[in-house]
């Protein structure tokens, strides 16, 4: 069991390293060279001190002592310079690699299907894409080089100690092995507690994020106390986790202190013995002592790198988990969709969100290209679900959906989404300019076209009020835009593309009848050579429909040509019309 664990652990580091560090190998080589030079200097300096002490014991010239001191200082300064240059290179590597990782992670998340996004708050995704990747920054930039470098430093010291006396060399080797073993053991305890803490952190920021968005509701309904209580409950959960996580670090620091004191004691014992028996010089005793002290740095460095590795461990596991999350929607091979208006066909489609009650039940539907379908039904009857299936945000459990004769599962998702446009009543305005919100950063759409569309939709007057025209910044979630205007902007997005099927999911629900009428002309123009599915509550909206389909609990209640159904008094449709009429006459 444990064996395979270490194997996957090593394997996952190897994979990540290979993919992200390899492109940076030029810089890594430079870093390595700098590091080796630095190590060399660190090994030489103590020799200078030994020479100094021994020469000072004898009553010789003062000159060589001064030379030795100056040389020592010179080497120190050079080492300082090297470390600054090394920082530049290692930071660069760190940022380049983590940026690439972030982009890959974000791109992967964006490609995941709706069921993933509905179950993860954007706050927790920020913790993952930014927080977890940040934890890896050190790993990429300097950890590998430092670990290898420090290992070489340790080996260098051992070799030089063996040169003095086999006893001291052997003693120090045993000491180092013991130190490394002890630190490894402690790590096994510390990693899981750190993961627990990061998870709690992600949840906490998910909670904060949601409430920063919903301040209006909370304020006006006097629910601030409730939110604060939730906050306190989270704190109570988080404190013990944090204490445990930090005790993990504490254990690691303590282990290295203890082990290190043991090393000093060993050095004292052995060098004292050698002093009394083999007549080594005082300078050599100091040399041994100095090298033992010098071992502290690499072991310390290894310890702190281990701590970072601990954080990286937890983060790498979470990142791999994220990458491994496959979209339930697999891209098709690339069957082409025909040009022009697209016909729609649902054949025996059954779908349920959670595997329990089906939202759609053996649904059949046929729409000719260029026709307009009006989809009616109670809320929750499955109307929006049909739209989501058409855009392949989900796949039906049974049955198939054809678009222009092609099974949408075999089309490329990108093609599908280019040819099918959807307008909903969700406000999805991003922080950015008006232009960005309308074109989604597509530079190929000319400004003149954008303004033309805005005017067609009756947003001309609104456009005139914008202080910076299309460059005006809009706040996240719409800000000072009224909900109706935000919806018109969503329409404008569709007009700027060239779909073969337009789905309008209660798209004009926030518009007053007057504005809706004004838009009618533009919508008529839009639908001229396109198919359309209109999901609506308001009967006036489905006025232009050729066909009507009424859904109830996922099954087709009634379907047929609009005119026929309206004329037949026993049809559900005409009953609905009568209800609508009542509200006018009341």
């Amino acid at each position, binding site marked *: 069991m444990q064996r395979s664990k270490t194997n996957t652990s090593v394997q996952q580091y190897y994979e990540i390293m290979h993919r992200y560090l390899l492109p940076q190998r030029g810089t890594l080589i430079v870093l390595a060279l700098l590091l080796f030079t630095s190590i060399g200097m660190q090994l030489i300096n103590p020799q200078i001190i030994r020479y100094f002490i021994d020469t000072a014991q004898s009553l010789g010239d003062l000159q060589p002592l001064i030379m030795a001191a100056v040389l020592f200082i010179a080497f120190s300064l050079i080492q300082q310079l090297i470390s600054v240059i090394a920082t530049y290179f290692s930071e660069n590597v760190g940022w380049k690699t983590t940026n690439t990782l972030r982009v890959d992670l974000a791109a992967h998340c964006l490609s995941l299907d709706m069921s993933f996004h509905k*179950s993860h708050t954007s706050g927790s995704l920020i913790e993952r894409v930014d927080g977890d990747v940040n934890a890896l920054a050190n790993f990429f930039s300097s950890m590998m080089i430092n670990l290898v470098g420090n290992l070489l430093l340790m080996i260098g010291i051992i070799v030089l100690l063996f040169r003095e006396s086999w006893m001291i060399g052997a003693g120090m080797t045993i000491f180092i092995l013991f130190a490394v073993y002890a630190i490894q053991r402690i790590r096994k305890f510390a990693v899981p507690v750190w993961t627990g803490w990061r998870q709690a952190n992600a949840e906490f920021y998910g909670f904060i994020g949601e409430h920063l968005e919903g301040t209006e509701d909370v304020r006006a309904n006097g629910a601030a106390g409730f939110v604060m209580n939730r906050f306190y409950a989270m704190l109570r959960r988080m404190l013990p986790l944090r204490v445990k996580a930090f005790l993990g670090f504490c254990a690691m620091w303590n282990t290295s202190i203890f082990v290190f004191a043991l090393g000093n004691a060993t050095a004292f014992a052995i060098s004292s013995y050698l002093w009394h028996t083999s007549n080594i010089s005082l300078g050599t005793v100091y040399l041994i002592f100095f090298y033992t002290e010098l071992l502290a740095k690499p072991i310390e460095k290894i310890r702190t790198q281990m701590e970072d590795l601990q954080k990286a461990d937890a983060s790498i596991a979470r990142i791999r988990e994220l990458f491994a999350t496959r979209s339930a929607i697999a891209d098709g091979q690339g069957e082409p969709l025909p040009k022009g208006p697209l016909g729609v066909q649902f054949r025996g489609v059954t779908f349920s969100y959670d595997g329990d009650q089906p939202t759609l039940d053996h649904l059949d539907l046929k729409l000719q290209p260029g026709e307009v379908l009006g989809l009616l039904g*109670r*809320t929750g009857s499955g109307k929006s679900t049909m739209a989501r299936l058409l855009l392949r945000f989900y796949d039906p459990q049974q049955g198939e959906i054809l678009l222009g004769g092609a099974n949408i599962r075999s089309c490329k998702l990108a093609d599908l989404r280019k040819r099918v446009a959807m307008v909903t009543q969700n406000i999805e305005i991003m922080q950015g300019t008006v232009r960005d919100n309308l074109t989604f950063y597509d530079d190929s759409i000319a400004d003149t076209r954008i303004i033309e569309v805005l005017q067609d939709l009756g947003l001309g007057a609104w456009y005139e009020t914008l202080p910076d025209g299309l460059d005006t910044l809009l706040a996240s979630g719409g800000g000072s835009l009224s909900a109706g205007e935000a919806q018109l902007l969503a329409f404008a997005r569709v007009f700027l*593309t060239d779909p073969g099927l337009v789905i309008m999911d209660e798209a004009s629900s926030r518009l007053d009848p007057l504005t809706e009428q004004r838009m009618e002309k533009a919508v008529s123009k839009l639908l001229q050579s396109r198919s359309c599915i209109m999901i609506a509550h308001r009967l006036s909206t489905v006025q232009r429909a050729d066909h009507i389909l009424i859904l109830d609990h996922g099954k087709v209640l009634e379907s047929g040509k609009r005119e026929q159904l309206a004329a037949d008094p026993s049809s559900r449709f005409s009953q609905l019309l009568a209800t609508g009429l009542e509200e*006018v006459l009341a």
Partner: protein
Amino acid sequence: MTTFQYLWRLIMYKPLRYVINAIAWTVIYLAPIIPGLVTKEFFDSLTGNAKLGYGVWGIIALLMAATLGRIVLIIIGFITDVHFRFRMGMLLRRNLLEHVLKQPGARAIPVSPGEAISHFRDDVDQSEEAASWSVDVFGMTCFAAVSSYILIRIDAQMTLLVFLPLVLVISAAQLATARLQKYRAASRESTAKVTGEISEMFGNVQAIQVAGAEKRVIERFRRLGDDRRKAMIKDRLMTELLDSIFSNSVNLGTGLILLLAGQKMRAGTFTVGDFALFVYYLTFVTQFISNVGKFITYFKQMSVALERLTFLLQGASAKMLTMAKELHLDNKNAPSDQAAPVEHLHTPLKRLDVDGMSYSYPDTARGIANVQLSLARGSFTVVTGPIGSGKTTLVRTLLGLLPKDEGRIAWNGEPVDDPGTFFTPPQSAYTAQVPRLYSDTLRNNILLGQAEQEGSLQQALHAAVLEEDVAQLPGGLDTVIGPRGVKLSGGQAQRTAAARMLVRDAELYVFDDLSSALDVETEQKLWERMFQRRGDATCLVVSHRKAALARADHIIVMKDGRIEAEGTSAELLQNSTTFQELWYGDEAPAADVAAGEPAKTK
């Protein structure tokens, strides 16, 4: 509030814990004094200069005992530190959250939620870090004092000549860190941009996927990441340059000692043991100076963090951040989930008057101007008008969700000074145009802390036409609805928000566009039940649905931010062109839909 005051107030939040923490860490930092002396003893014993008569084994025993003592102290120190830091950091977050929740609901934070999270997370972490390091500085100062004393006793000249230049060099480097603040602010800003971008990306996934804009959005993200890299490298390089001076000072100091000690060692006035002690303490003293430097850096970062946090407060005093408040970490004191403190007395509404109310959005200068209206008890008033005419703005400004620029509001003739606090249950309850649901059970989403009284929840569900939907949910009312409550359909979300409003007994119910996502039949039921239930509560509704307009006692028609006309629907149909257009549109009434005739244009 200066940064120092900020730090002081953070420390004073839990002074006892801070003091205990400081004592623990002071002793921890003093601990290395002993091993230093033991090392000197060892070398002196070899050359025969030993003061104490211990052999090698005695010395080793002394060393290990001191080590074990230090280990125990460190465990204690970690525990005290983590408890102190947690409380301090969470106090800041608590105060920030509470303040944000008290702001006008529609203008609660000046930045996007994603950026605000970066404030909550990183700026508070920085403040915590600086405060925690202050403890370390304290401990290290004690070590520096004690060790300096010991070293001066051995050789005063050496101590001064070695340490003084070091201190000067390092202090000079310290002064150079003034430039650090600029780079730090730049790098924090670029991080916030990246965080904000991630938040936007994942908050609007559906729109991005529908528009097929994934590649472009990612490309933009890549560019922002690169900008951040450049800012961060500048920041790090500056820090490292100064850090290297601090960390190399041990070697430089050792070199200085070598320069000066040569003669004295030959003369025998300076033993190898003394040399070992000097170098040993040198390590710690330079560590001390570099850590003081680090602390000063953290302190400067803290002032950047303070600035950014203050910005989030939108004008409130920064003192608010550090006000001492209870964190309820002790379970026994846990306030109940249902606590809903009554902030003001329940005053039944007789009349609500608004006079000359105006508000304009700072970035677009659109809004409402000079609004005057009166609501009598029990009336059902509808605010209508074309899109963008200011209906939602009117309602929000009245309720204090937007801070009004001008105007007077009077409740039963008494002026209302703070509408944001006044217009909450039991005075009024509100349903926003865009329902916001939270990751919690459906029950909690509706109650939001409201105490459940004698079936009030059931009544609210009935009035909001939600009973059937609840029956169909797998866990009923205890179903957890996902982030932003999106596992519910649009109509269900809207009705949940309505239930949330209705479960609260209020004098005035305000709802904005309640039925946009509802089908005709459900809408009818909703209005009917709403009417049955409301008794003589007063209602103010924003709508253009005929179901609402037909029932209204009084209709207010808005256009371009001003009230254009008022009256009953019959009056307005005769007198107001805007209302006629709203009612009929550009074509004949809905009667034609039934006949299937094409729309007639006027």
